[in-house]
């Protein structure tokens, strides 16, 4: 029982990453009709916003310490972050330690800017082009973005820890009457889950309760008609693209402490998030979120050794197997609409 509770928690946690990426992907698809293979790269850029802020905060001046030697036997160059020089070690230490949460503020304008530039500079010319062309151009863009990151940060993962205040684990077991220590869950992962829930709820509320959102939803349903109403739908769609980029980026920022970011993390998530979107149903926001959590939970269950002993290797294929079953039983995914991306 406790094992199952834990795997559900794992699944929800994993699912929240899937859902956040898939949400943006399906938002872009639903509003702009663009298949965005660069969406994974946006997630990766978000994670590297956290890395970059950390690097900026630890920009250092160098002093030479004659008493210590470096590995070549030369006097040791000691690096001290500028902010430590300015504010003293204690404040600086705290700021640096909190760089990941701070990176949220840092990432929002950057990701919005990236989204705007991408949409205005490239994507908007591809609205009327075949999906194949969209795939090619956004895939090319994804490669370029990740190669740029690789050029500056290398291929090795970069550890980006969460503040130590979040480093422990929360003991669910004690709360639910199990033995203490059996059902524990790391604070940061709980934060991630909560963050994802807030973002998802925020996007839904935004689309449901604002005029802007209503126009966009109408546009998703029938773009031409809304265009005929004399509403400048293009401008709103640009904003939607920036919003989707921002959601992906924030998902990346918060993910950085869970797994050290590397330049190809976007590609690792890309295929999975496409599967999530399609299983959820193209163009359905709710479907994307539901499929994200569903696949996350199933993947976690498939990883249990009790399951693996019966079905060896099921953890390797579970997501794809579920995708096949869902698509064969529900032609348009969990909540897809008819006629979307079927030609």
């Amino acid at each position, binding site marked *: 029982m406790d094992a199952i509770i834990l795997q559900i928690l794992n699944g929800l946690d994993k699912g929240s990453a899937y859902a956040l990426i898939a949400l943006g992907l399906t938002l872009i698809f639903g509003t702009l009709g663009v298949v965005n293979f660069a969406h994974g790269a946006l997630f990766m850029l978000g994670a590297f916003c956290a890395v970059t802020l950390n690097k900026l905060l630890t920009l250092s001046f160098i002093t030479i310490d004659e008493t210590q030697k470096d590995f070549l036997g030369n006097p040791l160059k000691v690096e001290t972050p500028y902010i430590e020089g300015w504010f003293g070690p204690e404040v600086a230490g705290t700021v640096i330690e909190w760089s990941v949460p701070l990176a949220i503020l840092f990432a929002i304008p950057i990701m919005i800017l990236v989204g705007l530039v991408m949409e205005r500079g490239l994507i908007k010319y591809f609205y009327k082009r075949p999906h194949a062309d969209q795939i090619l151009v956004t895939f090319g863009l994804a490669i370029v973005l990740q190669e740029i990151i690789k050029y500056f940060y290398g291929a090795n993962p970069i550890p980006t820890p969460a503040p130590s205040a979040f480093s422990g684990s929360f003991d669910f077991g004690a709360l639910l009457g199990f033995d203490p220590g059996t059902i524990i869950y*790391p604070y940061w992962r709980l934060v991630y889950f909560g963050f994802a829930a807030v973002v998802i709820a925020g996007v839904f509320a935004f689309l449901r309760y604002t005029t802007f959102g209503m126009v966009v939803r109408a546009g998703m349903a029938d773009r031409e008609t809304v265009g005929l109403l004399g509403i400048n739908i293009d401008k709103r769609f640009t904003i939607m693209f920036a919003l989707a980029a921002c959601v992906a980026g924030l998902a990346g920022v918060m993910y950085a402490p869970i797994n050290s970011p590397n330049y190809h993390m976007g590609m*690792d998530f890309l295929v999975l998030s496409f599967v999530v979107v399609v299983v959820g149903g193209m163009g359905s926001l709710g479907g994307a979120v539901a499929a994200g959590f569903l696949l996350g939970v199933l993947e976690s269950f498939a990883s249990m050794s009790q399951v693996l002993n019966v079905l060896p290797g099921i953890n390797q294929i579970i997501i794809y197997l579920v995708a096949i079953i869902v698509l064969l039983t529900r032609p348009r995914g969990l909540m897809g609409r008819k006629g979307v991306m079927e030609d």
Partner: protein
Amino acid sequence: MPGFKLDRRGLLKSGAVLGAGLAMPTIFTGRANAFTNEPTGSSVTLGFNVPQSGAYADEGADELRAYELAVEHLNGGGDGGMMNTFSSKALQGNGILGKKIEYVTGDTQTKSDTARASAKSMIEKDGAVMITGGSSSGVAVAVQALCQEAGVIFMAGLTHSNDTTGKDKKANGFRHFFNSYMSGAALAPVLERNYGSDRKAYHLTADYNWGYTTEEAIRSSTEALGWETVEAVKTPLAATDFSAYITPVLQSDADVLVLNHYGANMVNSLTNAVQFGLRDRMVNGKNFEIVVPLYSRLMAKGAGANVKGIFGSTNWHWSLTDDASKAFVQSFGTKYGFPPSQAAHTCYVQALLYADAVERAGSFNPCAVVEALEGYEFDGLGNGPTLYRAEDHQCFKDVLVVRGKENPTSEFDLLEIVEVTPVAQVTYAPDHPQFAGGQLGACNPGA
């Protein structure tokens, strides 16, 4: 086949430089070369086949730095590095057999197909007489088989799976790096000393060949000293989040977690394990411990503070204080500004060993090189006295057991050496079950 010959081209490359373009057309068949890519001009071409894209690109970049340094030293440049400490004095600093060393580079992408394509182009297009490099066992095995077919020497880079010199060994291939079995044999006594002989181990194993051999090696050596293996779960290579594999550990009564992972897998699984508080757990009245059989500095860097206090094994580390290691660190560090990784070390050593074997054999002929390397004993390359065993072309030398350092002084100072396990303890019989099933075959000189 009369009339058909494996092509050789280094000859023309060196002989005919631009400008001799008006020479009479010479049409010939069946040029009588003694072996593939026999260098006939004033230079010889080596092929450095390393991952330049993908997850191991940084490791590949470090390997390439080491090769460039080795070429510089072999051609007589720089401070000579480990050539000065090497027990063999055959190398003159004038290239190999007086021929200047040139090199070509390629990208393996850590895919066996691509690695072979890249190696083939080096052999067919650039006339490389030796291929070296790589950062995974799949690639090493694939390229080693290719070199065997093509008749060139393969000096493996970083490859740790038993198979490379076990069931997939080849006469034209040589491995300096240590292997899974050696990791197990070196780690076990240290683990026993630190964690006792009454432990329950839980293995997470990367679901591919290297993972299997490593798990087998660690299991057999730890079980030999009394540990119990409670569970061994295979994890997909593509996994990025290991939480679903870590949480069952909490439910088991295991008190040690062994992560048979490498590269990004290891960075993520270790990070996740620490997140879930495994380091702070008490099970069976003992501190819960994590073990990482194969360590590299780049992985330690990726995992950050999570590696502190965690045991693992490594082929070489820059903090070794023997003369050879110091000389290598000195010349590498001076040139590049940071200390070399174990991948860089093994690649540098392989380049030197190849050059030395050619010098001693007096020929680039792969069969002569094989003969010179088989059963060759040497010292002064950073690992103490070492034997290139004739039966499987595996180097036998001391193995380092290391631990993540508690208080690193720099971004490179992440591991500390706990013990240098003497070679005798990691030596095994050539027909050991973990290495069974392969045949070395005979050396193939190509033509």
